[in-house]
């Protein structure tokens, strides 16, 4: 960093003028001991005196009108302490990431929707009470297929989402028919008719992707404590401040009366951003009963009740010249929202990758979002990007084969330099070409036809494929990200960050940033996180935004704290504060390094009973620069043409992230994304009954996620490039590595076995069908 460009409120701190001492080192995560010794406390581990258990009654129909609910027998059951339903809360709105939703509407719109909830002294009693609740339903016709739902004659779905133009995630208007907000999103540039005329080859395909479920190992759990005035929610969420906001709004409490605490949480992957529906019911029950309430969802409930990755269908047509120049692209993506979604601020994300990843002068892409009588959809590890990358990168390989060009060359040939091809806005940094080169070299792309001879014999065919991607994770609205750094007299440092460590090592990274900026060892820094009590408002840990958004705030807070400490120290060292430098726990005068004192000694100068406290706040990204992260993966697969089984053998994953804060933690994100991506691509196959809308495999036996046996050899590469807007240039990694897995594996399957498969997941059955071996 040369120029002070850090994205913070006020004057950015000067970049450090010394080599890093903490950043870039593979430091073990600071909460490792708790996690390996079983002492890490997750919400479901908490038992409070007098605690009740809550259970939710769910609707067995995909679409029905509730004519009557009789809860009297349940209420009369000894041990039942509170029962809620539309009888006592008919107009209640809950909030999910500030999207208003009906809590107990008259019309229920998917199998599994909440109809009533009970709190009782133990779980057996609560379950028995559910069975005593009598509900009269009038069944209504339901629609599950989004294209069906778009027809004017279709049954109209009653979505859970209530329009709210003040909330960027909520719809701005009611649907028209079942079309979200009554309109589609269209991105265009140039003249596609002319573009297709200019093409030598035009290819049209249809791509389908299935739902993907988060399948976090910890099922959603919370313990809610209500003392008659204040609420404490011990939660397993990804954003304590967002949950506090949602719950306060839903229960009509001021936000400062809803404290949300997460000590540890067992996986989120986007699904635990914002307060989820179950939590509203449980909180209400705690208020009514005046006792603490614990709620834990069962594994089947996990599948049917929380928002997951959308299913999509995309019609894509692209034109290319024989020399590889893309001339036109036209597409229409249909997105199944289910009965509600965090779709609002994901608008255009599905088609944006296709719009910007390659240079193409003539483009028209349309995104159509549709409500159906299927479960809620929402954030999940690169929720839209993973889908958008699949159809684009699949199509790119198809074009390359049609014109007889190396797929890597085709991508390089159409490399997009600008972040907005019409306005010609620059990217803050883009080294996708490097990523492509490194990932393909690692897998010996040049000799990728080395398998051709062996593939002629026997059922096992090997092949190599690749895909590139772009990802966000660099700061997004709505914006408020602040952190505090506290230096204590005993020489310890605290970073107060209102975020959640969801397993990415966020707490460790915050501590490292503060340690680097203060010039102390990381062991003397503690991160206080996951608690709205002592922290300032911060974003939820999702959308891979933590480092990019909170990083600058933490660095600024630490720089401000250091400044205050230097002011105390300067006189002792007979120097001006500006002359002081600190590193590895030592403060020195820059022009005379003999004059120094330890950080601990300096802290002794803090007056008794006081501490140094300083704040930092991120500012939004400037509008005239485009911020993204980029990457590329190449993989080697093995296809068994007798059984249809596909094995991914090796994946080389190159991701451009600015600066690696902690190599060990970053590599773990490559592993996590790629392994989940393999599940998405090959294994995870949710099935719904087409007549009833019932999920047929809401369990981890039949909805299969990857085990240790499906894991390929993974070669992570992190491409660094200065991006002074961020904390030491560090941007995002978390979600990105899942994005190109599906297209690169799919392209490798073609390379191995000569079959194009355009639907996810690519099950053995789908492979055999494509080979003409099964119907």
């Amino acid at each position: 960093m040369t120029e002070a460009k850090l994205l913070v409120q006020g004057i950015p701190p000067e970049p450090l003028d010394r080599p890093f001492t903490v950043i870039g080192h593979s430091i073990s995560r600071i909460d490792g001991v708790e996690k390996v010794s079983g002492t890490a406390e997750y919400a479901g581990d908490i038992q409070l005196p007098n605690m009740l258990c809550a259970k939710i009654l769910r609707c067995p129909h995909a679409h029905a009108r509730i004519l009557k609910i009789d809860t009297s027998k349940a209420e009369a059951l000894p041990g039942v302490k509170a029962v809620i339903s539309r009888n006592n809360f008919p107009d209640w709105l809950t909030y999910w990431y500030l999207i208003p939703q009906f809590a107990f509407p008259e019309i229920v719109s998917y199998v599994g929707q909440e109809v009533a909830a009970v709190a009782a002294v133990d779980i057996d009693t609560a379950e028995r009470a559910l069975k005593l609740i009598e509900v009269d339903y009038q069944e209504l016709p339901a629609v599950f297929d989004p294209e069906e739902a778009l027809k004017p004659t279709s049954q109209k779905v009653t979505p859970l989402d209530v329009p709210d133009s003040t909330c960027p995630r909520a719809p701005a208007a009611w649907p028209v028919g079942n079309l979200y907000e009554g309109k589609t999103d269209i991105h265009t540039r140039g003249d596609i008719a002319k573009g297709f005329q200019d093409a030598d080859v035009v290819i049209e395909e249809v791509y389908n992707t299935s739902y993907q479920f988060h399948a976090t190992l910890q099922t959603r759990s919370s313990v809610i404590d209500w003392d008659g005035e204040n609420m404490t929610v011990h939660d397993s969420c990804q954003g304590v401040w967002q949950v506090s906001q949602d719950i306060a709004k839903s229960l009509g409490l001021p936000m400062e009366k809803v404290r949300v605490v997460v000590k540890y949480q067992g996986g989120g992957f986007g699904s635990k951003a914002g307060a989820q529906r179950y939590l509203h019911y449980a909180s209400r029950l705690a208020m009514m009963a005046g006792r603490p309430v614990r709620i834990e969802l069962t594994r089947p409930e996990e599948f049917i009740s929380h928002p997951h990755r959308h299913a999509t269908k995309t019609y894509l047509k692209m034109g290319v010249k024989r020399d590889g120049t893309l001339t036109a692209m036209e597409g229409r993506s249909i997105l199944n929202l289910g009965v509600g979604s965090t779709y609002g601020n994901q608008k255009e994300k599905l088609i944006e990758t296709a719009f910007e990843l390659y240079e193409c002068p003539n483009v028209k892409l349309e995104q159509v979002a549709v409500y159906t009588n299927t479960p809620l959809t929402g954030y999940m590890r690169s929720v839209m990007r993973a889908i958008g990358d699949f159809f684009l990168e699949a199509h790119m390989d198809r074009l390359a084969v049609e014109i007889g060009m190396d797929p890597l060359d085709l991508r390089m040939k159409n490399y997009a330099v600008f972040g907005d091809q019409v306005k010609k806005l620059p990217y803050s940094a883009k080294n996708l070409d490097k990523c492509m080169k490194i990932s393909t070299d690692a897998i010996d792309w040049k000799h990728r036809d080395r398998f051709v001879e062996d593939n002629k014999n026997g059922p096992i065919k090997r092949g190599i494929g690749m895909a590139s991607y772009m990802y966000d994770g660099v700061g997004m609205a709505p914006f408020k990200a602040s952190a505090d750094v506290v230096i204590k007299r005993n020489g310890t440092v605290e970073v107060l960050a209102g975020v959640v460590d969801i397993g990415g090592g966020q707490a460790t990274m915050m501590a490292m940033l503060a340690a680097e900026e203060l010039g102390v060892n990381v062991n003397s820094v503690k991160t206080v996180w996951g608690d709205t009590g002592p922290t300032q408002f911060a974003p939820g840990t999702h959308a891979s935004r933590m480092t990019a958004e909170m990083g600058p705030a933490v660095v600024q807070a630490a720089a401000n704290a250091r400044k205050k400490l230097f002011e105390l120290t300067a006189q002792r060292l007979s120097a001006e504060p500006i002359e002081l430098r600190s590193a590895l726990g030592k403060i020195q005068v820059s022009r005379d390094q003999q004059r120094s004192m330890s950080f601990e000694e300096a802290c002794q100068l803090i007056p008794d009973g006081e501490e140094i406290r300083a704040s930092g706040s991120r500012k939004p990204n400037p509008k005239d620069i485009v911020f993204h992260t980029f990457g590329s993966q190449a993989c080697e697969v093995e296809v068994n043409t007798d059984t249809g089984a596909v094995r991914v053998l090796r994946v080389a994953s190159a991701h451009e992230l600015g600066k690696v804060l902690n190599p060990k933690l970053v590599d773990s994100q490559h592993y996590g994304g790629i392994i989940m991506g393999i599940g998405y691509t090959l294994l995870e196959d949710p099935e719904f009954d087409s007549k009833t809308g019932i999920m047929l495999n809401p369990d981890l036996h039949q909805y299969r996620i990857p085990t240790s046996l499906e894991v390929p050899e993974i070669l992570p590469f992190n491409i660094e490039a200065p991006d002074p807007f961020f904390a030491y240039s560090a941007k995002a990694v978390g979600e990105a590595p899942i994005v190109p897995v599906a297209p690169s594996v799919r392209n490798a399957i073609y390379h191995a076995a000569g079959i194009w498969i355009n639907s996810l997941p690519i099950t053995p059955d789908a492979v055999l069908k494509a080979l003409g071996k099964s119907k």
Partner: protein
Amino acid sequence: MTSIGELRLHMEPKTLVDENRHQNQPRRVRRIVLSINGDSHSIEVDARSTLAEVLRENLRMTGTKLGCNRSECGTCTLIMDGRTVFSCTILAVEAEGKCIETIEGLASGSDLNPLQKAFIKNDALQCGYCIPAMLMAATALLRVKMEPTEDDVRQGIAGVYCRCGAYPNIVRAVLDVSRGQVDC
């Protein structure tokens, strides 16, 4: 969506409540003695309770986690008489007289054992929720196979899901320990 006909019955509250709970059985309290990590615990339990429930709720040993409560995910894995078992699918009364080992027994005081250290060193943990089970599965494996191959390790932990995808590091950590390569 495939049609397999009317499935409404299948959907009645049954799948939405926890099937593994023996709710139709009458509650019967029994006193049992469990041997856990070398200590004897004499406790009164509901005869319907699973071992995982008794550990977590009665004994407050919450290191053992639950992820499905019906033998799907392996999160509740612990060691009973030397073998890994899913504690969500064993009744506490069945565990009487058996030698039970849980995550709480791995460290001596605040001294982590080599496997635990290797997990930290290799970043073999993300959210950490599967880690107690992974550690117990790896412990059981290393007792029967002191020099496992990578394949042995993968097989040995295959009964435990890790949705965070820490598998490559977990395998490395176990191999490190088997090769004596932990120096923390």
